[in-house]
């Protein structure tokens, strides 16, 4: 028995360290982007929307380390300023769906019956439409802009969280500790939010990190279609879109904002993995 007990212990040590490494790397990347966003006015060498007719489509040089675009704007400065907007998109675009989805999923899963049926049919309806089509229709109704994007994201994005949490709640509400809580006279709200939700939420937290990546990309897609961030504001997705027609001649216009998206996404998914390890989601 002692032997069998020591094996999972060794495994846990490994998990702890393995988890720590991804946690450190993920946090470091996100912290780096956060600092860049905060310090944007200080570290950006040029004004991100300042056009220069004489420096159009320049390849990377010491003066313009990331090169310039077709309006002669400095790509490095635009990438730095874009960090602000993209971090904001990732955080807000995940936070509201997360909150709405978690609440709906908790209530639906816990109560079951008609409450559950109503919410889940709503989920089915939303899932029946292609994600981007629904997003674009909502934004089209509300008018282009980042605010509309956030609202559309909140209206559409919560369904995944609701499903995840609901599935967990359905299992957990039958666990003995939930029954014990009922038998001890705990209120339903207390059982739902204090006892079951903390045990149900780990999977959604992990998912929210990879969701941040998806939100980032849909933000870019919406901006690319001209419904999100409006030019000339520097946003990575917009920059990739703008540079698209020059890919063969001026690769740097798309490469650097594209790389930034990849790096930030990498940071989020590392953190997601680490959270999964910490919460023991994979056990």
């Amino acid at each position: 028995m002692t032997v069998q007990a020591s094996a999972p212990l060794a495994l846990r040590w490994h998990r702890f360290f393995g988890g720590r490494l991804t946690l450190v790397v993920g946090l470091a990347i996100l912290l780096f982007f956060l600092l860049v966003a905060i310090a944007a006015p200080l570290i950006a060498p040029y004004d991100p929307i300042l056009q220069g007719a004489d420096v159009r489509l320049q390849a990377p040089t010491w003066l313009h380390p990331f090169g310039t675009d077709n309006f002669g704007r400095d790509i490095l400065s635009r990438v730095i300023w874009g960090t602000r907007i993209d971090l904001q998109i990732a955080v807000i675009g995940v936070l509201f769906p997360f909150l709405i989805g978690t609440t709906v999923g908790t209530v639906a899963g816990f109560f079951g019956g008609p409450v559950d049926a109503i919410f889940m049919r709503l989920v089915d309806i939303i899932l029946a439409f292609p994600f981007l089509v629904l997003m674009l229709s909502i934004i089209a109704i509300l008018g282009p802009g980042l605010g509309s994007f956030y609202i559309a994201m909140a209206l559409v994005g919560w369904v995944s969280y609701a499903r995840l949490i609901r599935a967990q709640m359905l299992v957990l509400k039958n666990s003995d500790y939930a029954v014990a809580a009922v038998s001890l006279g705990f209120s339903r709200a207390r059982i739902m939010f204090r006892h079951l939700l903390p045990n149900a939420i780990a999977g959604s937290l992990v998912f929210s990190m990879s969701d941040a990546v998806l939100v980032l990309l849909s933000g870019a897609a919406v901006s690319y279609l001209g419904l999100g961030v409006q030019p000339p504001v520097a946003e990575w997705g917009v920059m990739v879109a703008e540079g698209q027609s020059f890919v063969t001649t001026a690769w740097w216009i798309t490469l650097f904002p594209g790389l930034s998206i990849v790096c930030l996404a990498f940071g989020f998914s590392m953190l997601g993995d680490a959270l999964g390890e910490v919460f023991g989601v994979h056990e």
Partner: protein
Amino acid sequence: MNDPILSVRDLTVKAHLPDGVRTLIDAISLDVRKGEIVGLVGESGSGKSLFCRSLVRLMPSSRLRIESGSVLLEGRDLTAVSDAEMLKVRGAEIGMIFQNPTSHLDPVMSIGDQIAEGIRYHQGASARDARAAAVDILSQVGLPDPARQYDSYAHEFSGGMRQRAMIGVALSCDPKILVADEPTTALDVTIQAQILRLLMEIRDRRGLSIILITHDLGVVAQTCDRIAVLRGGRLLEEGPKRTVLSTPRDPYTVSLIASHPSIAAEGGPAPAEAAPIAATIRPLLEVDDLHVRFASGGGLFGARGKPVSAVAGVSLRIMPGESVGVVGESGSGKSTLARAILGLTPLSSGHVSFEGVDLAQQKNAALFKLRHEAAMVFQDPYNALNPRMRIGDMLAEVLRVQGATPVAEIPARIGALLDLVGLEREFADRKPRSMSGGQCQRAGIARALAVDPKLIIADECVAALDVTIQAQIVELFRALKRKMNLTLIFIAHDLAIVRNLCDRVVVMYRGEVVEEGLCAEVFARPKHPYTAALIAAIPDIDPDRPLLADIRCDPPPASPHILERLP
């Protein structure tokens, strides 16, 4: 006697841990002859399972290594063969069956295919021949309709049927030796008797040698030819069954034999405790013709299956301070009854009244009373505690919600509760994950006591624990009962424990009470044939008192098994 088929000499296994080397199997030598059943007895941690796994080099961790000694199978040293050759030994020469058939059967492969697979792999038979051979094996292990059940999956079988199927899988490769690791521990006592008899039949028919690992000396006494007693990785004593049981040499063996329930029963628990209760005292709990029905199956759009009765007309009266055991095999409705009494499962009809307040008629008042004066202890100690909460926080929350303890006194009360259940006070800062099963169960009992209840219902609360821990928890209940004048309803499938702890016993079968009475009375002179069968199926430590020849063999209905798991 004939030469040993398996001869283990000075087998030593050590664990290489970061903090040093530990010896887990210490120079054990053991012989197994053809057609012999050898019982390996010892508590968990004694190395009995590891010993058998070492025979076929199935080490549970890469840190464990066979350091020295030899394992001679018909003269061939298994510690020297290559890994590739070992693959042929496993299954084909030494087959294994385990305690939990559910986790050792492939859930997505039909039972028959799992047996046929071994036949094709080890004997190179064609698909058609393998199928025929597999059907034959299924009938040998006593499945009633082998041709049809070939295509069944593990989840369609009851626990006993699964264990039969797993024995079939082990037999499929026609091994010379079968290692059975606690094959009946997870089963009801009547099913256990059937499986043990099956093992003996197979031995007789095939001339198979069996190594039977168990913690229950009764099982050994009933089935084995020889006994080996292990403790802490060392072989304490080995010899023919009757010699070891009648004249044990090692003090540990003596204590094992003395603590066996079938022996303890001779002295019997002092029935004086169950002093006749004056008729003027009102019963604490009255259950009158209680029915609990569940709709079975049933789709999304109506088309409900016909309801299944989990509890069918149970009447009980429980006096204050009494401890009552409820026994019956799985699916007999014991757990549903417990939950119905506590108002955790809706009643279909009948009455439950707690101190005179009727749960059906004055629902809110009764629930309020139950929530503040009754508590439950659960079977799986890990599942019963919120994994994210420290034990101290958990108890504090109960005390706060219950509201009977002033906030300032809560920390002191938590300490007192931990003392009461025999946990160190530092456990207040621990989470369930870092605690053993026994410690978690103590924490679960502390939570029940935090309510300061008049009634505690313990639902199979020792079934998931080790035998030695079981004894400790039972002892704890006995102490608490004495100290706090608790009324206890103790649900178990283990009759020996009930006999030890309770004054009265209620025997349930398929949702009905078939017999009830004082423990001593019922166990000595069971009136109902089912009770008699239950008692007869307990393997007695006396080898001359064989398991009752033929116990009712019809498997229990499938649906109540599922019902047990419903909320």
